[in-house]
C-alpha cells in the first residue's frame, strides 16, 4: 500500500513538473519521464524489497532534477507555478502555520465573498516555562483550488469591503494583521460599493491603520493585491510574482490584440521577463522587504518544512515591526534586529502597542512608502535649483507652522470668542434699542423715505434689461479655444439617433459652445489646455517640479522611443502637470493628469509629482485639486514601479486630508483603473464633467476577464453617480464656477485658507 502511494506521489510530481514547464523541451524532464515509465513497466515483476529500493532511488533522482530545474525557471514558469492547482493556498497556511484559527464571516460558499478569507488565528509558543498565545487577524485571498465559488481569488468589491471591516476590528482589538496576497487581480464589477472605489477606500484606511500589518505576497495582481497589500513589512515567496498586469494582459496590449485574439507564448514569455515581476526583481527595486525561499519548483501543501519557515518569518516580521516603534527598547529589540530567524520563536514581544507607539508605526509606514521608487524617474532639476526649492519648502513649512499652528490656533480661539461676544452684544442691543426706534419712528414719521425705497425696488424689478449693463451679452469669450475650431466643417453629435441633434458647425462647437452640443448637452472631448487656461488660469499660475521626467526604469523594449515620441508630441516631460493657481480669489494647488501623454497613465514621475503637489498644498495650507483630463491607469511598462504609486499617492493624500486639507477630484473624458482605484477614488469629493467615463476596468478588460458583455453606457458618469462613485456631474462651461462654489462650501472647518 505504502509503495503504491509513493509511486502515485512520483506521478504527481512528474505531472507538476510537466505543467510548469509547459511545452518546453528539457533533458531532465525527459529523463524523469523515461525512468518513471521504466519503473511502472517493471513494477509487476519486481520483488517488494527491490521495488522499495528502486522507488527510493527514483525519489532521490526527482529531488536532484527538481533542484536542477529550479535554477532555470523563467518568470513565466513562476507565473505557472503560482497558478498551479497544487500551489499552497491560504487554507493550507492557516492549517500549518498558525496553531489555531476560526474563520469569520464565511463558511464555504455561504459568504459575502468566498474569495476573501478572514480568520482570527493565534500562535502558541513556549518561551521559557510559559506558554503564550498571540492573536492575529489573518486576511487574504483564497484561490480554493477547484472551488468555482472562490472565483480564483478574484475578489469582488464587497470582499474588499469585508477585508477593510476586519482590519478595523483588528485596529480596535489592538492586534496585528497578517495579510496574504493570493490574487490574479480584483473582479471588475462596478456595482456598489464599486471595484475601484472599494480598493481606494481600503488603501486610504490602510495608509493610517493603527495596527501592525505584515503582508505575504504569493500572487500579486495589480489592484487586487494593493487592496490588502499596504503593509509595514512585505514578505514575498521566492516563486511568487507581483506585477502591474498579468503577462498575458501585457502581451495583449503590446501586440495590439483585439476581440478575442490570443498572444503568442513567446510574446507572453517576453513580457513576463520585461515586467520584472519576480521576487528578486521586487527586492532589488525595494518594493518588498524579504524573500522566503521556497522548496524547489515552488511550495506545495506537503512541504511542512516550508510552513515552519514561513511561521518563523511571520513571527520575526511582526516582532520587527513592533519592536521598531516600542517606546522601551531592550535587549530583545537588538536580538530581533539580528535577524537570526531560528531565534524568532524564542523571542517574546507583546504585540499590543500603546497609543504613541501606534502613531509612530503609522508614521514609519508612511515614510517607508514615501521613499520608494526614487530610481524610477529622472529629476532634471539642477543642484542649485534643488537647493533653492528645499530651502523654500523649509521656509514655507516654518511659516505655515508659525502662522497656522502656533499663532493660528490662538487667533482662531480669539476669533471665536470675539464672534460669540459680538453676537451676544447684538442681541442685547436689539432688545434695548428696538422699542426706542419704534417710538421714534412713530413720532417722527418716515413714510416719504419708505415710499422712495419702494419705488426704487419696483424700478429694479420691472425695468427692461439694458444691454449696456452687460446683462444681455450672449456668448462668452473663452481665454483659450481649441485649434479644432479653425476648421470649416460640420460634425454630427453621437446622440443624433436618440436626440435628433442638428449638425454642428465646428467653429461654433469648439469655439463658443466649448465642445458641448447645445441640443443634447453631449460633451465632445476637449484638450486639457482648455481647462488649464479657462478654468485654472495657467498663464498666471506658478508651475513647479516641471523637470521631473518619466523614464524607462525596466528597460522595457522600445518604450524609450514611445516615451520620446510622447514628450515631443505634448511638450511635457510626464503626464502630470502641477501648479499653484488662484480660482476667483481662492489660492489652490492643482495637479493635472493629461491624457495625450501616454493615455495619462501614471508612472513613477507622475506619482512623485502628485505627492509633491499634495505636500506643497499641505505646507501652504491651500486646497488641493486633482483635475484628471484622462487616465488609462498605471503605466504597465514601468511594472511595479507604477503600481507602487497607488499606495504612495494615497498615503500622501491621506496625510494631507488628515492635516485638514480639502482634496477635490474632477474627472474628464475617460478615467480608469489604478489611479481611480487609489488616490483619486479615495477623495471625499469627486466630480465628473458630463459625458465622461469612470471605472475600474475598461469594457475590453471586463469582457476578457469575466466573459460578460457590458452595456456601452456602463461607465458613463451618470451611472457612476447613481452607483455612488462620484458625487456630482458638472457642465464644462460651468466648471470654474462650480469649482469655486465647492471650494467655498466644502471647505468648512477642514480648510485652513479661510
Amino acid at each position, binding site marked *: 500500500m505504502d509503495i503504491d502511494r509513493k509511486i502515485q506521489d512520483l506521478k504527481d510530481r512528474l505531472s507538476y513538473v510537466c505543467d510548469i514547464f509547459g511545452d518546453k523541451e528539457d533533458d531532465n524532464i525527459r529523463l524523469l519521464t523515461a525512468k518513471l515509465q521504466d519503473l511502472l513497466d517493471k513494477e509487476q515483476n519486481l520483488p517488494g524489497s527491490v521495488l522499495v529500493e528502486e522507488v527510493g532511488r527514483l525519489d532521490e533522482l526527482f529531488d536532484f532534477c527538481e533542484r536542477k530545474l529550479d535554477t532555470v525557471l523563467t518568470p513565466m514558469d513562476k507565473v505557472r507555478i503560482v497558478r498551479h492547482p497544487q500551489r499552497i493556498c491560504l487554507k493550507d497556511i492557516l492549517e500549518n502555520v498558525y496553531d489555531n484559527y476560526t474563520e469569520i464571516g464565511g463558511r464555504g460558499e455561504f459568504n459575502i465573498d468566498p474569495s476573501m478569507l478572514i480568520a482570527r488565528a493565534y500562535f502558541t509558543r513556549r518561551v521559557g516555562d510559559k506558554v503564550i498565545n498571540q492573536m492575529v487577524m489573518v486576511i487574504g485571498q483564497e484561490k480554493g483550488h477547484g472551488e468555482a465559488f472562490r472565483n480564483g481569488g478574484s475578489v469582488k468589491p464587497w470582499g474588499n469591503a469585508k477585508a477593510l471591516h476586519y482590519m478595523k476590528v483588528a485596529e480596535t482589538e489592538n492586534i496585528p494583521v497578517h495579510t496574504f496576497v493570493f490574487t490574479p487581480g480584483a473582479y471588475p464589477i462596478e456595482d456598489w460599493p464599486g471595484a475601484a472605489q472599494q480598493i481606494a477606500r481600503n488603501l486610504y484606511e490602510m495608509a493610517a491603520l493603527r495596527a501592525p500589518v505584515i503582508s505575504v505576497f504569493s500572487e500579486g495582481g495589480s489592484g487586487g493585491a494593493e487592496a490588502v497589500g499596504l503593509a509595514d513589512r512585505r514578505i514575498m515567496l521566492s516563486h511568487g510574482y507581483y506585477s502591474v498586469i498579468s503577462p498575458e494582459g501585457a502581451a495583449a496590449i503590446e501586440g495590439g490584440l483585439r476581440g478575442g485574439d490570443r498572444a503568442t507564448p513567446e510574446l507572453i514569455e517576453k513580457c513576463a521577463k520585461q515586467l520584472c515581476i519576480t521576487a528578486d526583481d521586487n527586492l532589488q527595486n525595494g518594493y518588498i522587504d524579504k524573500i522566503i525561499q521556497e522548496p524547489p519548483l515552488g511550495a506545495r501543501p506537503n512541504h511542512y518544512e516550508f510552513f515552519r519557515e514561513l511561521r518563523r518569518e511571520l513571527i520575526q516580521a511582526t516582532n520587527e515591526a513592533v519592536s521598531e516603534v516600542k517606546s522601551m527598547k531592550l535587549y530583545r529589540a537588538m536580538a530581533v534586529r539580528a535577524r537570526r530567524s531560528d531565534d524568532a520563536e524564542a523571542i517574546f514581544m507583546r504585540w499590543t502597542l500603546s497609543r504613541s507607539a501606534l502613531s509612530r508605526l503609522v508614521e514609519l509606514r508612511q515614510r517607508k512608502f514615501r521613499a520608494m521608487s526614487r530610481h524610477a524617474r529622472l529629476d532634471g532639476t539642477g543642484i542649485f535649483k534643488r537647493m533653492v526649492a528645499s530651502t523654500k519648502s523649509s521656509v514655507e513649512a516654518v511659516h505655515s507652522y508659525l502662522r497656522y499652528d502656533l499663532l493660528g490656533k490662538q487667533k482662531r480661539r480669539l476669533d471665536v470668542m470675539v464672534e460669540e461676544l459680538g453676537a451676544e452684544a447684538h442681541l442685547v442691543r436689539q432688545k434695548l434699542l428696538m422699542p426706542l426706534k419704534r417710538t421714534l419712528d412713530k413720532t417722527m414719521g418716515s413714510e416719504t423715505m419708505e415710499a422712495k425705497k419702494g419705488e426704487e425696488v419696483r424700478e429694479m424689478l420691472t425695468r427692461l434689461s439694458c444691454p449696456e449693463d452687460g446683462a444681455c451679452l450672449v456668448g462668452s469669450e473663452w481665454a483659450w479655444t481649441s485649434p479644432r475650431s479653425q476648421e*470649416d*466643417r*460640420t460634425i*454630427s453629435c453621437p446622440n443624433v439617433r436618440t436626440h435628433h441633434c442638428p*449638425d454642428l458647425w465646428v467653429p461654433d462647437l469648439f469655439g463658443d459652445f466649448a465642445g458641448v452640443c447645445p441640443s443634447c448637452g453631449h460633451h465632445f472631448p476637449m484638450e486639457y489646455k482648455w481647462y488649464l487656461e479657462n478654468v485654472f488660469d495657467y498663464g498666471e499660475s506658478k508651475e513647479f517640479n516641471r523637470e521631473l521626467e518619466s523614464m524607462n526604469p525596466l528597460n522595457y523594449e522600445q518604450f524609450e522611443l514611445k516615451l520620446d515620441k510622447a514628450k515631443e508630441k505634448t511638450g511635457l516631460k510626464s503626464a502630470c502637470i502641477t501648479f499653484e493657481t488662484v480660482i476667483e480669489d481662492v489660492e489652490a494647488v492643482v495637479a493635472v493628469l493629461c491624457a495625450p501623454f501616454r493615455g495619462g497613465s501614471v508612472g513613477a514621475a507622475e506619482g512623485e509629482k502628485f505627492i509633491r503637489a499634495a505636500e506643497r498644498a499641505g505646507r501652504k495650507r491651500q486646497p488641493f485639486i486633482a483635475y484628471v483630463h484622462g487616465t488609462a491607469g498605471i503605466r504597465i511598462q514601468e511594472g511595479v514601479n507604477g503600481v507602487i504609486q497607488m499606495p504612495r499617492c494615497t498615503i500622501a493624500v491621506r496625510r494631507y486630508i488628515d492635516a485638514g486639507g480639502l482634496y477635490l477630484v474632477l474627472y474628464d473624458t475617460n478615467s480608469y483603473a489604478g489611479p481611480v482605484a487609489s488616490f483619486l477614488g479615495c477623495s471625499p469629493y469627486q466630480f465628473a464633467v458630463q459625458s465622461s467615463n469612470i471605472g475600474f476596468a475598461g469594457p475590453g478588460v471586463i469582457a476578457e476577464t469575466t466573459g460578460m458583455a457590458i*452595456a456601452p453606457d456602463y461607465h458613463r458618469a451618470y451611472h457612476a453617480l447613481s452607483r455612488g462613485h462620484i458625487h456630482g456631474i458638472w457642465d464644462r462651461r460651468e466648471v470654474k464656477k462650480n469649482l469655486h462654489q465647492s471650494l467655498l462650501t466644502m471647505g468648512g472647518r477642514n480648510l485652513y485658507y479661510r
Partner: protein
Amino acid sequence: MLNIKELLDKVKASPYREIVVCAPHTGVVEFAGLKVGDKVSGRRGDFMEKPGTLLANLTREKNTKTITAPEKGEIESVRTELEGQFVEAGEPLVTIKHFLTRKEVIELILQEALYLFRAPERAKYYFVPEVDQKLKVSGKRSVKVSEGMELMIVSRMKRETPLSYSGPEGIIYSVYFGRGDNVDEGEPLIGICPEDQLTVIQDVVARIQSEWEEEV
C-alpha cells in the same frame, strides 16, 4: 375566407424582402466597395451596440457620415454610377435582399390573415379595465370582440376617450402596442381572428415554426 396555403406558397416562392437604402440627406456619396452578392449584417451585439456593415459614406459640409446596413442580407444592387457624386435626400443607393426570418414570416402571414384594427389617431391606447384584466388573467385568446363593443381608451393630451371596436367578430389574436407607447395613426393595434379560423392560423404558425429554415 383567406387561402393561407396559397399565401405561404407565395412567401416560399420568394422568401426575401428587398430593403432599399436611401440617402438620408444630401451629400457626396462614396461607396464602401461592396459588390453584388456580398453578405452584410445589421446591428449586432447584446445591446445592439455594434453597427451594421458599412455600405457608404455620405459627406455634407465636410461632415462624413456613415450609412450602415439596417438588416442582415445580401447586396442585390449598388448604384456605383453615383460614386463620388452629389445626391439628394431619398436617392436610393443600395438594395439589400433580406432573407425573411421565421418571426417575420409569421408576422407577414398574420398581417394578411387577421383583421387589423388600426389606430384612428396618434395617441396612447389602453384596454378598458374589464378587458385588460381578462387579458392578464386568461391570456389574449380569451377575449372575444364584436362590433360596437367598447374596447379601448384613447389617451391624448391628458384627455381619455373611449373607443369602440368596429369590424368583424372574433377573438384577439395579437396585440401590437405596448403600455404607454404612442401609436401612430393607421398603425395596427390588435389583430382579430374569426373564431372558426383560429385553429387554421395556429396550424400555420406551428408549421412555419418547424419548417421555415432560418438563414444563419
